[in-house]
């Protein structure tokens, strides 16, 4: 037979080690993008095996194939419409029953598939023994035991996948049989849909119509609305009979089948003493001890990132600025030279000296925490606090990210369930003082007024986040969601996967932020060369001088700050010709200036991230809102400060 291109999809619950398997299979040949027009990630990679070129698609981690989330809908459509040659269903051996619930749905979709029974080591430690052969017989699907994190079973998995593609399924699969009434309903509807040309199998369509699946109901009613109304009638009959909605009945019965298979295939030998993971879990979610542990971990994390970042950032910037004479000799010191160096090269330097020293370690630690399972514990502990601003515990993760950099924080809001939640969380994260703003708070107020004033600004920031978060939560239409989250067992993260995730995030950051930072620097440099900056400063003076009581020159620095917030301070030093700010600014001015830089606008890269995630309109709205808000806040603060003697 001729060798050809194959497509294999990885599907399964979240946190089952799918991405580790994906990394083992595809190595460096990966591409991570988005599903067309969606903010759901699509990871794709290629490998060569037995003469085949195999495309591996890593589908999002999901618990079901309903259509309540974008991820579920995308996965289902992909499997049904694009028809990968085989689906590798990655199953967490330590939570077999719930994972099989998903497996059964894949079976109902009539997908060619094999199972990777992963995390066999964790299952064993939890006292769960699984008879792989028995499971294979019960399901009628090949089952390959794997410990992905150690690379065990990956080769066999690939071999089996190719074998299935070449020879076709060898065994008859389990049929998911429902109760009598449900089966009658399914049979009736199946007969009606059998003739239709549809990408889902008839029995599947029938089941989903009875479950009240909106996507399928819409599609079918376009062809024949009669079928949908019949299904609804049947569903109502079943509901009256069982006392639960038909969808509930079907889900329960499907879980019943999963439970039966799981009970038959696994043997529980309860471990005598609680495992290390168990004890760690108890400690880190403890009512009292959990919080200091969290505070300590986060402080340690930020401390190490900032220490590492400061050191590396300076090293890098010294290195890059060493090239200035070379550029000066190449392009001269005239307009061209100024534009090339000050516009383009400095833009790149700006990006590099933020991205590499701060964002890389930030992501490494973050993914480490996520993979290990600690992030979900933090979300658990912070749920109540986040509810105060209408979000739930998971939103604490992007907020925390925001303290490093707002760009990844905005992108990180994807973990929220609904569009409304994502926007709310993103808005809140833009108010979080990122590393650059921390530089200003500490470097200006902390340095010249004392650390207590700097801390006070942080407290004010928290209060403002709280107030504006609540305001946004009340204004935005829609309903809040609540925390539903799995806390998987603690485990050692897979270093390579962590590094790879970091790499892709970094690439994403560069793609979003760099072009704008460079264009922005160029524009400002042009303005500088043509002596437009003073003009702008004068134009802004009614706001900066009259309303905010700042020197007119701050107008210029605030414009530079749009590129990178810490430039406001750097430019201030350059323009005022001193780094001893106490000589040129009064304490009141320092506070007002710092407050301004904290809130006056999301930096250009953050705006880009907002545009990408939410579109122009919403990004513009947030930007304008923050400009207006910061100016009002600064003016009010000034008047309050002058009232109080100090």
């Amino acid at each position, binding site marked *: 037979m001729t060798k050809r291109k194959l497509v294999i999809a990885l599907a399964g619950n979240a946190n089952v080690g799918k991405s580790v398997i994906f990394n083992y299979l595809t190595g460096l040949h990966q591409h991570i993008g988005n599903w067309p027009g969606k903010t759901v990630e699509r990871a794709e990679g290629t490998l060569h095996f037995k003469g085949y070129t195999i495309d591996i698609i890593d589908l999002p981690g999901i618990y079901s194939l309903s259509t309540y989330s974008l991820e579920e809908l995308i996965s289902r459509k992909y499997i049904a419409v694009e028809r990968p040659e085989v689906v590798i269903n990655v199953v967490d051996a330590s939570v077999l029953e*719930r994972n099989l619930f998903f497996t059964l749905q894949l079976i109902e979709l009539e997908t060619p598939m094999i199972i990777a029974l992963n995390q066999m080591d964790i299952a064993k430690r939890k006292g769960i023994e699984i008879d792989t052969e028995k499971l294979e017989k019960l399901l009628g699907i090949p089952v390959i035991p794997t410990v992905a994190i150690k690379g065990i079973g990956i080769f066999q998995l690939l071999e089996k996948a190719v074998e299935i593609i070449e020879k076709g399924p060898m065994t008859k699969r389990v049929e998911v049989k429902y109760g009598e009434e449900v089966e009658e309903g399914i049979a009736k509807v199946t007969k009606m849909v059998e003739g239709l040309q549809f990408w889902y199998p008839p029995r599947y369509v029938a089941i989903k119509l009875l479950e009240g699946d909106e996507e399928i109901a819409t599609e079918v009613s376009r062809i024949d609305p009669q079928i949908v109304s019949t299904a609804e009638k049947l569903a109502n009959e079943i509901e009256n009979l069982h*006392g639960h909605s038909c*969808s509930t009945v079907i889900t329960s019965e499907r879980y019943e089948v999963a439970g039966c298979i799981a009970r038959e295939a696994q043997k529980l030998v309860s471990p005598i003493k609680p495992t290390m993971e168990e004890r760690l879990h108890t400690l880190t979610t403890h009512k009292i001890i959990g919080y200091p542990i969290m505070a300590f971990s986060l402080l340690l994390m930020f401390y190490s990132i900032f220490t590492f970042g400061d050191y590396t950032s300076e090293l890098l910037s010294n290195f890059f600025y060493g090239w200035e004479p070379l550029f000066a000799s190449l392009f001269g010191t005239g307009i061209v030279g100024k534009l090339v160096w000050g516009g383009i090269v400095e833009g790149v330097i700006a990006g590099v000296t933020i991205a590499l020293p701060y964002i890389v370690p930030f992501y490494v630690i973050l993914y480490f925490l996520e993979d290990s399972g600690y992030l*979900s514990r933090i979300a658990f502990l912070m749920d109540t606090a986040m509810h105060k601003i209408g979000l739930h515990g998971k939103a604490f993760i992007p907020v925390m990210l925001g303290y490093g950099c707002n760009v990844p924080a905005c992108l990180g809001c994807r973990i929220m369930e609904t569009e409304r939640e994502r926007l709310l969380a993103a808005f809140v994260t833009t108010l979080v003082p990122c590393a650059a703003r921390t530089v200003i708070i500490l470097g200006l107020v902390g340095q010249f007024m004392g650390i207590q004033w700097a801390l006070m600004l942080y407290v004010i920031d928290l209060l403002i986040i709280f107030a504006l978060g609540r305001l946004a939560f009340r204004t935005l239409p829609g309903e809040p969601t*609540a925390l539903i989250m799995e806390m998987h067992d603690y485990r050692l993260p897979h270093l390579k996967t962590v590094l790879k995730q970091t790499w892709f995030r970094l690439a994403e950051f560069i793609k979003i932020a760099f072009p704008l930072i460079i264009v922005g620097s160029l524009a400002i440099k042009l303005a500088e060369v043509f002596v437009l900056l003073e003009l702008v400063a004068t134009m802004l003076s009614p706001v900066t001088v009259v309303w905010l009581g700042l020197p007119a020159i701050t107008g210029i620095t605030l414009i530079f700050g749009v590129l990178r917030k810490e430039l406001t301070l750097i430019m201030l030093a350059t323009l005022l010709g001193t780094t001893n700010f106490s000589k040129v600014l009064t304490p009141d001015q320092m506070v007002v200036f710092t407050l301004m830089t904290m809130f006056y606008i999301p930096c250009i890269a953050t705006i880009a991230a907002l545009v990408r995630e939410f579109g122009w309109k919403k990004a513009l709205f947030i930007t304008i809102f923050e400009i207006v808000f910061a100016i009002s806040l600064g003016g009010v603060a000034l008047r309050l400060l002058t009232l109080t003697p100090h």
Partner: protein
Amino acid sequence: METRRETGRAEIPLTTLREGETGVVTSIKAGRGGGWVRGWGFEKRLMDLGLTPGTKVTVVKSAPFHGPLEILVRGSRLALGRGMAERIFVEIEKE
């Protein structure tokens, strides 16, 4: 679609279980009239995670300050916001 049949047995919200207690899910009261639960299908999500009627649920702990519950269901550990846990009804298992 409302089905609140009185069964005569004591149905109590999951949040009233003490830490360490186990109950059997009887129903999830989504509420009618397009309340906050309709928009994002929280009932379906809970079902998909295994909280179907008849399933045993153990409350492991509840976070302080009216925080979320940690529950064990079908061998997995879940965190559930309290507002939602209040809508899950259980009856306590007799030993």
